[in-house]
């Protein structure tokens, strides 16, 4: 069974078609890189997977369910782009990771021993135990990303969506995060990440999807990122994403 199954997905904002007949699937345990220029529809695709925009046509199935059911089961987590987070917000690293456990708690979100243990584990896996009580604005770019990855781990999400995880992250942190993501997929989790970093994709990803409003190619990175495919994806006329 595919973890992500997208068929004929078409999303438009007014007259602008952000996605046009997008078809692809991602199987369990894949580390899939979503490659495309700015405005190629990557963010819209993430929004569609999360159920934040309604498609004009086509369907999204996650774990064989519609996306609402998959969300309610806590199967999906989303690691936002750095600029979409309010870094002055009065929460610590630990507070953010604990938010991953909300789906496991009652209405008033009172953490049980199991929740605290899951948070401790997640913090350890991303090597942030020592910084657990630091306010999130006082972290480096890489530490910020790891905080949100830890939230997904604590959530026990089976599918992680990462939007540009390496923007504003130094090379050392990038390697650390890539290794972490690789480990997470070998444990059976599925990861879809959008990236500009073409060089990293063949090294780390097990699958690549080349997007330019529709899927130009999908499959093994070496087969997808060919010169002629890339010319098509990156040489085409640019459209600004709304």
């Amino acid at each position, binding site marked *: 069974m595919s973890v992500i199954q997208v068929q004929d997905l078409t999303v438009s904002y007014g007259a602008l078609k952000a996605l046009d007949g997008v078809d692809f699937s991602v199987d369990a345990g894949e580390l899939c890189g979503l490659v495309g220029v700015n405005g190629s529809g990557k963010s819209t695709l993430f929004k569609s997977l*999360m*159920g934040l925009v309604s498609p004009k046509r086509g369907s999204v199935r996650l774990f064989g369910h519609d996306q609402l059911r998959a969300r309610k089961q806590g199967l999906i987590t*989303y690691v936002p782009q750095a600029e979409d987070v309010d870094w002055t*917000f*009065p*929460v610590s690293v630990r507070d953010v990771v604990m*938010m991953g456990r*909300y789906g496991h708690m009652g209405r008033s979100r009172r953490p049980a021993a199991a929740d605290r243990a899951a948070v401790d584990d997640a913090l350890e896996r991303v090597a942030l135990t020592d910084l657990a009580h630091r*306010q999130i604005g006082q972290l480096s770019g890489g530490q910020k990303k790891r905080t949100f990855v830890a939230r997904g781990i604590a959530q026990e999400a089976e599918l992680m969506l990462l939007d540009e995880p390496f923007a504003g992250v130094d090379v050392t942190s990038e390697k650390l995060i890539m290794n972490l993501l690789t480990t997470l997929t070998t444990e059976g989790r599925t990861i879809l990440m959008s990236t500009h970093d073409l060089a990293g994709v063949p090294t780390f990803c097990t699958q690549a999807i080349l997007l330019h409003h529709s899927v130009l190619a999908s499959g093994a990175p070496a087969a997808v990122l060919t010169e002629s495919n890339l010319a098509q994806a990156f040489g085409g006329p640019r459209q600004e994403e709304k």
Partner: protein
Amino acid sequence: MNILTWLTEPFAYGFMSNALTVALAAALVCSVLSCWLVLMGWALMGDAISHAVLPGVAISYLVGVPFAVGALAFGLGAVFLIGALRSTTSLKSDTAIGVVFTALFALGLAIVSKTPSEVDLGHILFGNVLGVTMPDLVQVCVLAVLTLSVLLYLRKDLMLLAFDKVHAHALGINTRALNFLLLGLLALTVVTSLQAMGIILVVAMLIIPGATAFLWTRSFGRMLMLAAGLGVASAVCGLYVSYYLDVSASAAIVLAQASFFAVTYLAAPEQGMIARARLRGAA
């Protein structure tokens, strides 16, 4: 006169102890809610809803129902109208807010000006905490307890809403409903505080305690407690100042809050001006 009589004398009067109860209830609810308004960037929304209830209050006095009923109806109506304008036009949200609340406020003024004898505009605009009646007191306390309970029970979800809507959505939480709930609680809070603060100054209580607490701490839990403490302290200080210096009570309460804010701006541990200057000096 010794200090104890100085402290207890004002509240030997029934009207002053009623004023204290109402001011404390309002301060507590407003301060707690203010933490969310500050973090969500809803300061203007608070101002808008407090102005928009004017016609509701005026109509309530005219037809003789508790003012909370009319105020709440117009508060929620304003929320609805602002939401409708935003979703059906491409106007920016502060524009939509500006159009709706000024129109409703003007409607209120028009109603009051046609019926000057029944409604005391001054009391509605600037508060009348010293003229609280028993039914008012009960109304305010019931609303305060209700609003505060919901806020505190759902504080984690509401914090998540303010911090990361997408994650809340990813967990299957209905963020739209939660958003409306918070707006509804804002309307309830405004209604609760109307008697103590009046329409014009209630926004101070909806912003300043949260803003002050935000500068002191980097933890949401501490921010809530600090804001509540500041709100209560300013209500008490304000009433003393009002009694002994014969100053308008709502003005005195807001001035107390502004003083706390000014001290914080200078002296807060990390984000205060003095700490920042020291940090620059050390660097």
